[in-house]
């Protein structure tokens, strides 16, 4: 162990933890099923019928293999491949998120540049920000009258705040020296915004974007459970109603993986725009 690099040692440890965890899980399942012999009463009331139990990991892996080998099949409204369900979720997240970015970043610029705008808008932001995005759902469904658009709206409203606040914060914090460089080179306001303020504030802005995408992915699952129809959130709920816990566990894992991928993308972007003073 001594000679191995830190990364290798960490990787070995991760694998060991995974294998160990799965093993404990696998071994604990039969034990659970034999817990308590069926009583007379249960036998009489049909309690002995096949009950939904927590599946062992082996079953989940088999399920994952099945689903992932054909992710895009479509066999009617209640039976779509995991790829299609995730695709719907990502589409909703990205649409709502893009709309939020389109508004939050320019507005954040304005707020960051102008103390008046900051003070004028701050009370609204402070009241609207802590509202759970799902609380908007009934209102959205009533006004928009469309479940698809309502889900996108909920994503929009939850991802706008971190981006707005971080953009404003980043823009307000741009060193006045750099702005003075732009001024002494007679750059116009638009040119200054794009060539000096945007790159200077980019690390803070992208951090806000990264937080937003994380929140959006958390919220989409809940939103889709509510609006139904399609999406990974609906899928989880549907499989729960079918008492198919194997599918539930599998989709939970997929939610985690996709969330991680989205976060990694923004992590890379963050590294691209980072600079050392």
């Amino acid at each position, binding site marked *: 162990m001594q000679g191995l690099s830190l990364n290798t040692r960490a990787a070995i440890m991760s694998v060991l933890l995974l294998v160990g965890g799965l093993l404990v899980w696998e071994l604990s399942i039969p034990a659970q099923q034999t817990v308590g012999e069926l009583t007379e009463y249960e036998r009489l009331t049909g309690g002995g019928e096949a009950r939904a139990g927590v599946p062992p990991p082996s079953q989940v892996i088999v399920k994952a293999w099945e689903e992932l080998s054909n992710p895009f099949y479509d066999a009617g409204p209640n039976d779509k491949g995991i790829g299609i369900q995730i695709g719907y979720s990502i589409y909703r997240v990205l649409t709502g998120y893009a709309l939020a970015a389109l508004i939050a970043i320019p507005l954040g610029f304005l707020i960051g540049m102008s103390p008046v705008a900051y003070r004028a808008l701050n009370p609204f932001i402070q009241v609207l920000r802590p509202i759970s995005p799902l609380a908007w759902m009934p209102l959205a469904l009533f006004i928009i009258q469309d479940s698809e658009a309502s889900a996108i709206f909920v994503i929009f409203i939850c991802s706008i705040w971190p981006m707005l606040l971080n953009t404003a914060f980043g823009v307000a914090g741009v060193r006045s020296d750099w702005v*003075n*460089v732009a*001024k*002494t*080179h*007679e750059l116009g306001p638009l040119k200054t915004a794009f060539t000096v303020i945007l790159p200077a504030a*980019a690390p803070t802005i992208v951090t806000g974007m990264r937080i937003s995408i994380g929140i959006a992915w958390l919220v989409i699952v809940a939103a889709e459970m509510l609006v139904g129809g399609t999406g990974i959130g609906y899928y989880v709920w549907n499989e729960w109603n079918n008492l198919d816990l194997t599918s539930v566990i599998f989709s939970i894992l997929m939610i985690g993986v996709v969330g991680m991928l989205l976060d990694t993308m923004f992590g890379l972007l963050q590294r691209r725009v980072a*600079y*050392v003073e």
Partner: protein
Amino acid sequence: MKPFLSIEKLTQRFPDGKGGELTVFEDATFGVEKGEFVVILGHSGCGKSTIMNILAGLADPTGGGVIMDGQEVKGPSLDRGVVFQNYSLLPWLSTLKNVTFGVAARHPEWSKAQVTEHAVKYLGMVGLEGDVIHRKPSQLSGGMRQRVSIARAFANHPKLLLLDEPFGALDALTRGTIQDELLKIWGGTEQTVFMITHDIDEAILLADRILLMTNGPFARVAESVEITIPRPRSRTEIVEHPNYYAIRNHLVQFLGRRSKEMAGSRTGTDTNRPEPMRIDRTAPADEPESRRPPLRAVND
């Protein structure tokens, strides 16, 4: 006839944070000729940077104004290049891009290749060549960053170059090299330089004229000392010039004692002009006194 740069009755007051006012300087009046290298010396906090910011057009004075080349200074301009005290390079751009940033602003009609070529030429002048110019400022030494900043300002051929303690953060050796480079570049141009420094030897080496400021508040540009040492000057040779120590002692005297004695009160007059001062030990004794600017005794 007005000088190239004319500072007229410049007054700057700031709120002092206790409801009152702090007058940094009042009715400061002086001129700078075209092509002249003027250095301003004064204690910390006397208002040098404040004057510089007004000259750059980055700050508005409370009263008075600045006229350059017959035009009033209103806001920043590419005709006034600034080397800021802390370099002010844009850290997300490479060294080269920091200079092309300025060149492209000055010559929007140039092609990309032209802009790059011009920038590379000026980086070369300050001794930055090869791989270095593709590094980020954070990967450069303090002295290199300073040179990038100087290259950026010089590449734009501003009519007036404003330098705010440009070598403040450098060690003595690097400082010497960059001073020489600055003189070399300036020597080949018609540029006017206005520079702030704390360093007396640096001031004597570089300046045609040194403006001396008294302490604030109500600071005054009290004296204008001509540096009567011929150019080209080199660090090692100027110390042997008969005028060197005479001038140096005068400056030390001023900063050490008189800047305090003269400080702190209104002068009553409505234009505070610096008193011209010429110290020349080499002047032939028979030269008629009247042809020389007013001369004052120097304590040795």
